[in-house]
């Protein structure tokens, strides 16, 4: 069965086969962001905010749909008692330990989702417009401001959208999407970018399927 020798452990992101792509200069870029540690924190902020601050070194977002960034760490609001904590890979263990200790007396859940989610970067002056082909979120600059996070549907994929920052109309957005939907979303985003010259991304498709029912012919 095995035709190739497998080497030491190698990690692959869901989109590892996909190169970063972009449209005409100054329009839109798509890329999968490299590995990072991600955790879902479930916690009643009223009960555990101080402990969290102490352990993680940053505040919980003060308002819904907001994020807090401190250096390379960030906390994104996902729900009233649900947050996405992002940190550099190397800090994952230390962060988890610190939180486990710090929140030991608080009812909480700190679950690693580094592999569950991948992050797709959508960047450029046309980023908002491209995304609006896939989501019903109001992404007008008046409505969706830097630092904001929103969970929504993007085409058929649920994902969290985070506007990291925006300079002179060029937005830098991240989409956190679950592994199994990453290919779909990537191709849908590329399709949305075609207007600005983003190359078409052939979705993985055409898997062989049986075209007859087999229940009647088992033997």
């Amino acid at each position: 069965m095995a035709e190739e020798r497998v080497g030491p452990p190698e990690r692959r992101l869901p989109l590892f086969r996909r190169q970063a792509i972009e449209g005409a200069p100054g329009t839109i870029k798509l890329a999968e962001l490299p590995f990072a540690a991600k955790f879902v924190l479930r916690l009643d902020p009223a009960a555990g905010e101080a402990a969290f601050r102490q352990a993680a070194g940053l505040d919980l977002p003060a308002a819904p749909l907001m994020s807090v960034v401190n250096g390379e760490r960030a906390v994104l609001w996902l729900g009233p008692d649900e947050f996405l904590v992002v940190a550099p890979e190397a800090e994952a263990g230390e962060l988890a330990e610190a939180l486990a200790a710090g929140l030991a007396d608080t009812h909480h859940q700190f679950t690693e989702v580094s592999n569950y989610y991948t992050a797709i970067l959508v960047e450029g002056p046309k980023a908002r417009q491209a995304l609006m082909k896939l989501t019903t979120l109001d992404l007008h600059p008046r409505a969706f401001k830097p630092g904001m996070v929103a969970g929504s549907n993007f085409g058929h994929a649920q994902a969290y959208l985070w506007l990291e920052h925006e300079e002179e109309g060029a937005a830098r957005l991240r989409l956190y999407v679950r592994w199994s939907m990453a290919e779909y979303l990537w191709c849908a985003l590329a399709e949305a970018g075609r207007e600005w010259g983003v190359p078409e991304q052939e979705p993985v498709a055409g898997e062989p399927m049986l075209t007859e029912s087999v229940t009647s012919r088992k033997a």
Partner: protein
Amino acid sequence: MAKQPYRVAKRGLIQRSRVIRFTFDGRSYPGHPGDTLASALLANGHHMLARSFKYHRPRGILAAGSEDPVGLVTIGAEATRRDPNTRAAEQELYEGLVANAQNCWPSLATDFGAVNDAFARFMPAGFYYKTFKGPPGTWTGIFEPIIRAAAGMGRAPEPGDPDRYEAVNRHCDVLVVGGGPAGLMAALAAGRSGARVIFCEETARLGGSALARDPEGLRFDGTPPAQWVADTEKELAAMEEVTVLPRTCAFGYYANNFVGLWEKVSDHLPEEKRLRHLPRQRLWRVRARQVVLATGALERPLVFHENDRPGIMLSGAVRTFLHRYGVMAGKRPAVFTNNDSGWVAAFDLARAGAEIAAIVDIRREMAPEHLAEAARLGIPIHASSTLVGTEGRRRIRQIEVRPLREDGTVGEGGSKIACDLLAVSGGWAPNVALFSQSRGKLRWDADIAAFKPGLSWQRERSAGAANGTFALPDVLAEGARAGVEAAAAAGFASGDVAVPEVEGVEPGQGRIEVMAELPSHLPAHRRRAFIDLQDDVTAKDLRLAVQEGYSAVEHAKRYTTTGMGTDQGKVVNLNAFAFLAAERCEEPVRIGTTTFRQPYKPVTIAALAGQHIGPHFAPRRMTPMHAWHRRHGAVFEPVGDWLRPRAYLRADEQDGEDFYAAVQREARTARTACGVLDASTLGKIDVKGPDAREFLGRVYTNAWSKLAPGMCRYGLMLGEDGMVMDDGVTACLADDHFHMTTTTGGAARVLAKLEDYLQTEWPELKVFLTSVTEEWAVASICGPKSPALLAELLDDFDPDPERFKFMAWRNATMSGIPVRVFRISFTGEISYEINIPATYGRWMWRTVLEKGGKYGITPYGTEAMHLLRAEKGFIIVGQDTDGTVTPHDLRMDWIVKKNGDFIGKRSLSRSDTARPDRRQLVGILTEDPELVLEEGAHILQRRNEPEPPVPMLGHVTSSYYSPNLGRSIALALVESGGRRIGERLFATKGGLPTVPVRVTETDFLTLKAKGQLPQPPREALHG
């Protein structure tokens, strides 16, 4: 090059300097950029371009826009780009456009279908209800095929549409629909406030009816109309927050100010000029805080004998063709009107050089200034007269005028007047389609004899002609006001918006006199006065509908099909309503209207689907190992959104392996050596909190209080109706921390349900749930060689089943990578599930296969997995259950705890649910071991079925040929199954004779181990 005999010099917004060619019905014609197909055909003197639906009567063009009911053609040169039922009046002309007549055979000019017309008297409304009622089968066999072949309009294209479509979402503060004077002012006013404005216009240009006016006679603040429109458009374009969308029709006004816009992005371009990076059409899904409807007014035709000939056109359309497209639709036009609009059209035509044959007006009194102007232009006037007939086949050539008596009947005398165009006007009616779609209430306005917006139901306002305001200065002012108010309502102040001073205000339609059907000297049954010109509904048909009791407007519509064509009766419906009112001697307001439904005009199906088709139609959820599966012969099966390998067909064997052989091989290898399954798709939920155990005890049927960390337990989850909904194994990670698994297809449903109970039913429980399905890639390794393989795969790991017991789990590492290993099994075989962080999944899988090579490992798919678990008698929720099966029906009483509540518990004791003779899951063995039952086969008491209905005892839920038992096996739900173990019953086999079977326990492996499997293995065949 042919001339365009009806093109007039210097008029129109067409690009005269360029001549483009198009073909209609195989003949080539010239036209200009800026033309529509209709205007270009008219410029060439071509009026007849279609045949009507029922009688196949010649049809021309009635209106100059999307409201035209009759001028339908098929566009497109290629069969895959064929667009039937395209309105010539809407289709912009481009170089090389190919149009063809439809609904006629052999040709437009000679159409055999037209014989229908000769038999029209025998085919009144609803004639088919009264006949063709032969014995059963005659309709399907004889009459229907004939009717179906005769009906329909264009021919559908061939599959394989090469074009792209897309949908986009937008939010805005103000949406302005309609680019006429009212809409322009509204957009301007709203735009100046800084509000986010979307401004759409159905046609290629802004300007609306301003472009249908003689530019000489009209000034906005001293500027000619086209210039004013252009200046306004420029100002709008410069506003950052304003989006102007020409060629964009607002087709649907839905709840909560959601409006669908349909943009034709490249339909106006020749094939080779279409921009590949842009879609053919675009759907704008607009969420507007406020909406301004400035959709203008539509002109009605008049209902009189022979009013359906090509060359009979609405007066406004005549003006549009003249001023917007530079086409004089006729050189000797006659006018027939019940209001002043016809007069204005006549004057325009006369000034442009036409010789007006006559103005026929049914009214007695006319505006003196019009009479004076007519006299000045030398136009013959026939006041208080009507038309009683027309002539001309492919184009009108004569009208017959008769005086109208005071009592509304036709007088003697009169004359026949030659003409080559008849402009008709029945007065203008506000275009209230979108308003009514928004569920606003209409108000009857007797002055204009039409409905206009009354009571708004959503955040919307109408302005201009759409609101029944017809005088241009008022229209502009109302538009501006609507824009200001809409912006204000959305929170934006615009300040004052100066309304341009209009020079050349038209007098308007004046007093309008409505006669539902114009009188005639002909006996009623000889009159052919058309109301719906597409579906061939005549006044006579509507009269018959009333006579037969189909007099409610909705009944009349359905009985006669009036307003049910592709135009949805935009310009003809009001005539139908007026006619019904007259017939029923009631006020029109009591008749009401039929329902204005979406879409305003027909919208391409692919545009509604947008980009979400083909490979983007439904996501394919993939595990990290997906690519490997594809490379190794996997045949896939959809499980929810996931694609899972179903079996791996080996290519190396001769001719390749077929599916059945692959499944047998996989299942055999998994039990005799080693097999590995990609189990990553199983749902996984991290459950944590001090009340986690309590919570599990409520959502599963069994108890969880004693499960120790390091151990796992199987659970069944029910709905509140007591029926099995999902199952899975949950591992205790720590006293307050669990790792729950669900079925692949049930994952999302289970999580939602658990959240539901936690958030709404038991908020007091301190438990958090987080989905971790894709965090882990999972290899489920089974078979006698699996312990040895595990020992090799994992670092310092003792997989010995004696010490690493069934239903335990451990942390371990694989080449240093932390993994969780579960000793759980769905096959009854020694089995391990390695869970590794998904980013290592691909590597893990390849490593397992590489290191498993020497143990003879095989990857196996879901089909072998199903087979293996059936050998052990394990259920699959959704296959062996169907939402009507309780744990007791599965004979899994052991899993239902006696004490304490859980979801679904109370349902189990309902009188029917607790019945002892319900269908229960049992094993089924055919007496012939080689015979594999069909899943879905039914179980009967008797060998020979009596006549239906045959009593059924149950059905087969799972059935396989088991390579490991050397015979076929099946699971079935059978009435009182538990009590029937050992009984001989019969299974159906399609239409073939039933086969004898034996009822057994479900765990076939154990039966075999105990020597209770009745049949010998068949080594010979499957060695």
